[in-house]
């Protein structure tokens, strides 16, 4: 098999070789031409070494046995010596160590190198390290090129010593070809606006905003619903300490409302984002609320007016709608507040259901004049240096998993509904009842992993991470509040991983919760009693179970909040296949994103419990405050540059740019493209597309890339 594969590869390469040979003269011509105009147009005073004068040093890293264990380092070293431009070759056990860096530093000086190639790990890991070493040796740091012979070679070809040695030779040859053409580049700095934005005012957004505000940064906190607090304000108690959720959240909500540095914009959405790190221009849409705050009233000349939250309007409103905050289990009027502790205490009109009868306007009275039935969406623009996304989550529509009968069987509810039922301020005053008959349940089954850990395409493949723990808490609350009622927990694993979580699990089991290890297969309803038969396999007993219970609580999976997709596109943040926002690095940069200046806090990045959410928010706030406190940011000099004499001004690149970095400007009587360097990410979309070859991608310029391809296909004989 292996041999066959190799043969095919060689054949392919041969055909390619022939093709390239035919085209080679054309390309070489282009190569000769391109650097010259580029050197002229590159904004930074770039120093270019003529390719024939290039002296490249190659440094091969063993990475302990990570690399050296899978390939013949001396053979690679001997090969590297034969390559054109190579003036010096060395190897070291750990190139990234201080002695390893000293080897580079010294070799640059002793051998008058013009470029450095390190064959080691991924540039994502150690490019900054070796750039610094290159700089310390007296070269421009961008005269460095990395050949990845670990992640893309020794690790994946661990059992093919010969093959990995050959591949390392190829990688080094390619890197040397590019290194010979590298230019000096100089990063740009841009000033940073001393303001930040946090999108979403759940516990993550609030914590991030409070931290930023405490660090002296003006912070705009945007919340799409009428009040702040998010999911956490819907919860009754929190595990494992059993603190009342509202009790620990309310002080933070009040702080947010009071903070001088936080400008709270509820019932508002981000409408548009322009700009880049340090200088984001954000358009905010303030949705028509129909009710004026005291400040807004004053701005309209109504002195001492505006909503004071008295509720007179609500009393007279004739329209009744389900209360979304209570998961539809309580009624609300067309003019409403979510719950008694709302911050800000300002009513909101649901214009989708308001019949504009005007009763509320009369009730509000001529002094306050808080209600404006004709209010429209308003737009405001703010400038911020950094932004934090904290858009949170929604409950997965668990009725899609039909086997559990949610929305078909009255006594099957979700955990969020149970949370409201067990909450003293909820629709039942904190004593859960069966939706079918209002009776107190005697036996309650909890279905864990409902829709989580599900690869059918209907549910979610990931673990929602907090369902085990809140279900344990629910079991505790049942034992505590409803003596005689037995909670049955159907589980696959109990994931009680956090601080004091396992101890909590122990406590709940001790309190009398019954644990049945087995995922619930299906649920059927007894049509007379409305009791439910829960079918599962007690995998510990190795016996199928038919458990008759009064009520079933589904610990439904969670998914990104509905508006996450729109918001992330505005900020240019990528997401995983599940829609969770993508962090810059899952371990080492969990709050950052690939868009400089945009950070992530809380569950929008992936399921998190409250402690993790708050920690992540504080991390994001800290990360977002760094550029602001520094006052300026350095941008990678990888931006595109227009070679104006070649630009036809067709403008096709302008629409292709995903970062709106390009525009057409009038120069010497004709249209040419201009790059806003700070916005450009160097993605190369424009450079690859330009029909006239007029775009020079710094550090990834066409001649450099062509040289790499030639080096690979022609084996270095150019």
């Amino acid at each position, binding site marked *: 098999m292996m041999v066959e594969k190799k043969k095919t590869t060689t054949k392919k390469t041969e055909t390619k070789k022939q093709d390239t040979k035919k085209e080679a003269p054309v390309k070489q011509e282009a190569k000769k031409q391109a650097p010259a105009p580029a050197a002229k147009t590159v904004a930074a005073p770039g120093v270019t070494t003529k390719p024939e004068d290039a002296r490249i040093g190659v440094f091969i890293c063993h990475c302990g046995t990570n690399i050296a264990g899978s390939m013949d380092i001396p053979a690679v070293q001997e090969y590297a010596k034969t390559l054109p431009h190579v003036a010096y070759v060395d190897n070291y056990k750990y190139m990234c160590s201080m002695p390893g860096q000293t080897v580079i530093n010294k070799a640059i000086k002793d051998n008058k190198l013009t470029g450095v190639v390190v064959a080691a790990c991924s540039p994502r890991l150690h490019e900054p390290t070796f750039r610094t070493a290159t700089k310390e040796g007296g070269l421009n740091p961008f005269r460095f090129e990395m050949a990845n012979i670990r992640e893309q070679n020794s690790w994946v070809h661990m059992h093919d010593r010969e093959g990995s040695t050959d591949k390392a030779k190829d990688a080094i040859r390619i890197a040397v070809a590019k290194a010979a053409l590298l230019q000096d580049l100089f990063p740009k700095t841009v000033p940073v606006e001393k303001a930040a934005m946090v999108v979403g005012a759940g516990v993550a957004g609030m914590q991030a905003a409070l931290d930023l505000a405490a660090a002296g940064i003006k912070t705009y906190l945007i919340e799409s619903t009428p009040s702040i607090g998010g999911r956490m304000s819907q919860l009754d108690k929190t595990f494992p300490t059993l603190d009342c959720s509202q009790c620990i959240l309310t002080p933070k909500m009040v702080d947010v409302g009071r903070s001088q540095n936080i400008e709270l914009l509820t019932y508002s959405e981000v409408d548009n984002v322009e700009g880049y790190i340090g200088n984001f221009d954000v358009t905010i849409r303030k949705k028509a609320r129909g009710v004026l705050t005291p400040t807004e009233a004053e701005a309209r000349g109504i002195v001492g007016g505006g909503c004071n939250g008295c509720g007179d309007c609500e009393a007279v409103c004739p329209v009744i709608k389900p209360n979304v905050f209570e998961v539809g289990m309580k009624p609300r009027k067309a003019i409403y507040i979510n719950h008694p502790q709302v911050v800000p205490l300002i009513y909101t009109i649901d214009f989708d259901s308001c019949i504009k009868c005007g009763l509320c306007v009369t009730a509000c009275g001529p002094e306050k004049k808080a209600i404006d039935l004709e209010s429209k969406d308003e737009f405001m623009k703010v400038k911020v240096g950094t932004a934090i996304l904290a858009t949170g989550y929604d409950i997965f529509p668990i009725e899609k998993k039909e086997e559990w009968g949610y929305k078909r069987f009255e006594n099957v509810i979700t955990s969020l509904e149970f949370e409201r039922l067990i909450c003293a301020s909820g629709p039942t005053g904190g004593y859960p009842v069966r939706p079918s008959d209002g009776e107190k349940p005697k*036996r309650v089954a909890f279905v864990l992993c409902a829709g989580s850990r599900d690869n059918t395409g209907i549910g979610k493949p990931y673990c929602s991470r907090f369902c085990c723990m809140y279900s344990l808490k629910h079991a505790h609350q049942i034992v505590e509040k409803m003596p005689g009622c037995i909670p049955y927990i159907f589980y696959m694993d*109990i994931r009680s991983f956090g601080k004091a979580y396992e101890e909590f699990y*122990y406590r709940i*089991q*001790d309190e*009398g919760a*019954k*644990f049945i*290890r087995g995922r619930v297969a299906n649920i059927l309803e007894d049509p007379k009693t409305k009791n439910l038969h829960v079918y599962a396999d*007690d995998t*510990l*007993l190795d*016996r*199928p*179970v*038919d*458990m*008759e219970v009064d009520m079933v609580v589904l610990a439904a999976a969670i998914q990104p909040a509905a508006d996450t997709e729109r918001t992330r596109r505005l900020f240019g943040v990528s997401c995983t296949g599940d829609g969770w926002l993508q962090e810059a690095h899952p371990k080492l940069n969990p709050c950052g994103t690939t868009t400089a200046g945009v950070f992530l806090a809380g569950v929008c990045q992936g399921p998190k419990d409250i402690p993790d959410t708050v920690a992540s928010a504080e991390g994001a706030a800290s990360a977002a405050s760094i550029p602001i406190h520094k006052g300026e940011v350095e941008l990678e000099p990888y931006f595109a540059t227009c070679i104006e004499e070649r630009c036809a001004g067709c403008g096709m690149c302008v629409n292709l740019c995903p970062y709106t970095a390009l525009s057409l400007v009038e120069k010497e009587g004709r249209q040419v493209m201009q790059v806003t360097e700070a916005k450009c990410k160097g993605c190369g979309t424009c450079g690859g597309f330009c029909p006239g070859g007029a775009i020079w991608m710094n550090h990834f310029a066409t001649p450099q890339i062509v040289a790499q391809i030639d080096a690979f296909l022609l084996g270095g004989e150019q």
Partner: protein
Amino acid sequence: MAKSKGYPEALEKKLHDQRYYREDSTPDFTKRVEDKSRTIAHMCFQCGTCTGSCPSAPRSTYRIRKFMRRAVLGLESEALNDPDLWLCTTCYSCTDRCPRDIAPTDVIMAMRNMAFTHDIIPVNFLKTVTAIYSSGHGVPNNDVNRAARERLGLTRDPPTTHMYPEYMPGIRKILDHYHLKENADRIIKEREG
């Protein structure tokens, strides 16, 4: 319970509805086991350290973890009627290693006690009772042992009721107090005629 269809016994047993229903459970069984065993049986989280440690498990169908599960679920009749209940050697390895500090051995002993009140007990256990009643030993001394002891320079009989038969009445008094001998004799007679 599935209706008999006249299949051979083994197949009949296989086809029997083995589903566990809520009604199968005796809710206070867990508590009675705990009262007798003086251990927190309900805290078992079924890690299986007990069965893994058990010297009986690899040589038999005895699975102590399943008895712990039955204790937690209140499956009284199933636990007490399982003949595997009598395969524990009471070596206490499981008790030594249980991470939740439960004494599974004591749970087994409690279940055996409860089973005995329903006359559920293998005859060989009752024969041990008879042996203790007559000699004070579950495994009385014999001539092979006596010869071995002599070779080792020991007394022919150990310093127990064998050497001091005058203590036998006391032992019999204890056994009589619990009607152990009486019940053992009755059950042996019923089974062996």
